[in-house]
């Protein structure tokens, strides 16, 4: 088969074949597609194989935002086909983007068009602005034979036919109406006739038209199949399925890029979502945005040179844009003010791909979210995910006043699960939290994000109420602890076989970078967890707010941007 055929557009479905929450199965030139319409109307044309075990995605579940494989529950996002969830490691969704194969698609003239490497214009459809899409008729015969026989299609008196440049056939009756017939080449001996009548119709007339053509096309099919049966059946087409890379077999490692701004996005909306909080909608300048998981953040590189981290607030299926919320900090070091005052709709920003150091478990029987102020942002994305999948949660949002409630509309979709606590004093907040967190239990988890003091208090209340360390998940947006960088020590890099000295005034991360080691980082103040590194030997002086007390006590990892050695030497697993 020539690549020329693969670069054409072919109709592979009628629009009406794709109701919501359905997965349609198609084949083109030997390759199977899983085709599904998301609730936003977008039509996805994907390889009909789950990346995991190769099971057909056409038996999967279209939940309106994601397609879930029936076999082990891998989930793939609308538009990007990025994998958003792997149940086998519920605490850690893939750290980087794994995407299923997508194929070019367009939906025009009541038909869904696709092609393996299709590009360029669809066939010229002059005269077919208003159409009735005929019932497609599958035929067990090669495309060439079907196309040849379509020239003899007669549906009224005095039909004449002509072949178009794209290989379709237009049959025009003496009375005027024309039918344009396309052949979808499914496989070497398998085609589908897809027809358009050049007039719209409805009601009884429409049914009569559809039945008339359906009958005639089925009669034509009988003749074509009889002819095909007397010929030698061609071998089925062979297609290459891109191999799944080796690294998908294991849990994907964190990406090793440093603080990079690999994406360019345009601010397409900027609005005040609450008092002092602005929301920005960011859309890609080119191509789709990388897939994110709930809890993920991005680095935003500001015009003044500062780099700031903001959590994505998006729900599942929102793959064409990122939305962040930024609070104006009165004692800002320039980040929030630069966004509030310096960024306007239409501006282009450099951002990093999403990174997720605050993963959401989806095997919990119940999840409690505790948000304080702008700490709402990562938790909002998580709650929208659970809500969409019908998993149980409650969301407690602590704000100064009703005017401080951000992203009202998104909360509206969650109904009774959300409780807004307005204007409570620290004492009242403590009492409320003790009540909210009074029932720890198996497979119950709590996620906390908010200002430092509130976060500390909540963690303590949860621990006092008996929540296990593993069940308390938190994210600080900044590290306000006093940090000491006066010590000097050596680091042995076990895998790189290097010994480096960290002098006072420099961080481990600085020294690694100077030695040419590409270590990823993001907040660089010990809050986000990106620069985490394994420790094989040595005492650690933890100065971050990312690790839990238990993790700190275990001493098996270190945040290289702020923490240091408490001994003379650390052996790092790098």
């Amino acid at each position, binding site marked *: 088969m020539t690549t020329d055929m693969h670069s054409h557009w072919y109709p592979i479905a009628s629009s009406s074949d794709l109701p919501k*929450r359905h997965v349609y*199965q*198609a084949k083109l030139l030997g390759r199977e597609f899983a085709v599904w319409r998301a609730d936003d109307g977008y039509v996805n044309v994907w390889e009909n194989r789950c990346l995991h075990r190769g099971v057909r995605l056409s038996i999967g579940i279209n*939940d309106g935002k994601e397609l879930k494989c029936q076999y082990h529950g891998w989930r793939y996002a609308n538009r990007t086909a990025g994998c958003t969830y792997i149940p086998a490691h519920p605490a850690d969704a893939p750290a980087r983007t794994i995407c299923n194969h997508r194929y070019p698609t367009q939906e025009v003239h009541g038909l869904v068009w696709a092609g393996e490497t299709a590009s360029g214009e669809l066939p010229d459809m002059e005269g077919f602005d208003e159409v009735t899409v005929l019932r497609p008729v599958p035929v067990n015969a090669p495309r060439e034979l079907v196309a040849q026989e379509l020239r003899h299609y007669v549906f009224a008196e005095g039909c004449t036919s002509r072949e178009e440049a794209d290989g379709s056939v237009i049959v025009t009756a003496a009375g005027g109406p024309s039918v344009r017939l396309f052949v979808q080449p499914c496989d070497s001996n398998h085609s589908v006739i897809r027809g358009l009548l050049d007039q719209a119709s409805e009601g009884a007339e429409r*049914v009569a038209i559809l039945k008339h053509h359906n009958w005639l096309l089925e009669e034509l099919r009988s003749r074509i199949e009889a002819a095909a049966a007397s010929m030698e059946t061609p071998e089925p087409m062979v297609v290459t399925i891109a191999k799944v890379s080796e690294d998908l077999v294991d849990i994907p490692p964190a990406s090793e890029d440093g603080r990079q701004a690999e994406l360019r996005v345009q601010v397409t909306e900027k609005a005040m979502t609450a008092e002092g909080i602005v929301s920005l909608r960011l859309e890609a300048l080119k191509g789709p945005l990388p897939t994110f998981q709930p809890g993920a953040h991005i680095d935003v590189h500001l015009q003044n040179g500062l780099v700031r981290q903001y959590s994505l607030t998006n729900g599942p299926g929102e793959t064409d844009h990122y939305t962040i919320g930024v609070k104006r900090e009165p004692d800002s070091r320039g980040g929030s003010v630069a966004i509030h005052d310096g960024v306007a709709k239409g501006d282009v920003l450099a951002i990093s791909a999403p990174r997720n150091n605050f993963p959401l478990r989806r095997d919990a029987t119940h999840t409690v979210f505790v948000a304080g102020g702008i700490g709402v942002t990562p938790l909002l994305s998580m709650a929208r995910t659970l809500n969409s999948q019908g998993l149980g949660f409650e969301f407690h949002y602590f704000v100064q006043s009703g005017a401080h409630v951000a992203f009202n509309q998104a909360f509206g979709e969650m109904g009774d699960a959300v409780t807004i606590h307005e204007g409570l004093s620290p004492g009242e907040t403590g009492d409320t939290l003790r009540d909210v967190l009074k029932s720890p239990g198996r497979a119950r988890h709590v996620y906390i994000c908010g200002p430092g003091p509130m976060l500390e208090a909540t963690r303590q209340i949860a621990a006092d109420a008996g929540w296990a360390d593993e069940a308390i998940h938190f994210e600080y947006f900044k590290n306000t602890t006093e940090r000491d960088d006066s010590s000097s020590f050596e680091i042995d890099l076990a895998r790189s076989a290097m010994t480096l000295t960290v002098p006072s005034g420099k961080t481990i991360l600085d020294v690694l970078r100077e030695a040419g080691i590409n270590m990823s980082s993001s907040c660089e103040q010990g809050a986000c967890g990106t620069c985490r590194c394994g420790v094989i030997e040595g005492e650690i002086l933890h100065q971050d707010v990312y690790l839990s007390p238990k993790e700190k006590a275990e001493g098996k990892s270190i945040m290289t941007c702020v923490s240091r050695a408490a001994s003379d030497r650390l052996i790092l697993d790098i």
Partner: protein
Amino acid sequence: MIRLYDYELSGNCYKLRLLMSFLGVEYESELVDFYPGNRHKSEAFRKINPLGQLPVIDDDGLVLRDAQAILVYLASKYDGSGKWYPRDNPDLLGQVSQWLAFADAITATASAARLHDALFYTHIDVGACRAGAHRLFRILDEHLFFAEEAGQDWICPGDHPTIADIACFPYIILSEEGGISRMDYPAIRRWCDRFKRIPGFTVMSGVFPAGPAADEDSKLAS
């Protein structure tokens, strides 16, 4: 209580499990080792059904064989709404009976191909069975396409499924186990989604549940 002589992998037994689940009728399963035990051909079972076939029910002493016959009986006796088997509507009743016979033809083809591929019935002419199933599926797909055009969700007219849907469903949804793809039958594939969303739907080995319908599309009232 109703006793169902049952085999998990039998689509014909599944028809009855489906109807009793839709109706909320309690029953107990008497498992018959169809494969590999071949117990449906045993002397003991042939005393219950001389044809040596599953399913059979025993409802308080009334012993009935044949999946379609049992659907008619159970729906007539236990469906107070009269919607699954509309006894008082001759037009509809005629259509239901027509499609029950069609379901038997599906069993003779699609189920036979599955027995060949999955349960080692090697004497079956699987090519002929698959071709026969495709002929039937073409007819049903066309029927369901025009039913959708008329605003109808089910095999027979009306706003509620009938036992005709139940009788046709199992060996259609299991057809791929007999090497019969449903890719060419998009209207059948959509009907399968709707069927799986009937309240009370249960699965069997090889049959997967559907996700929830989009709100505006969920026409079926429970």
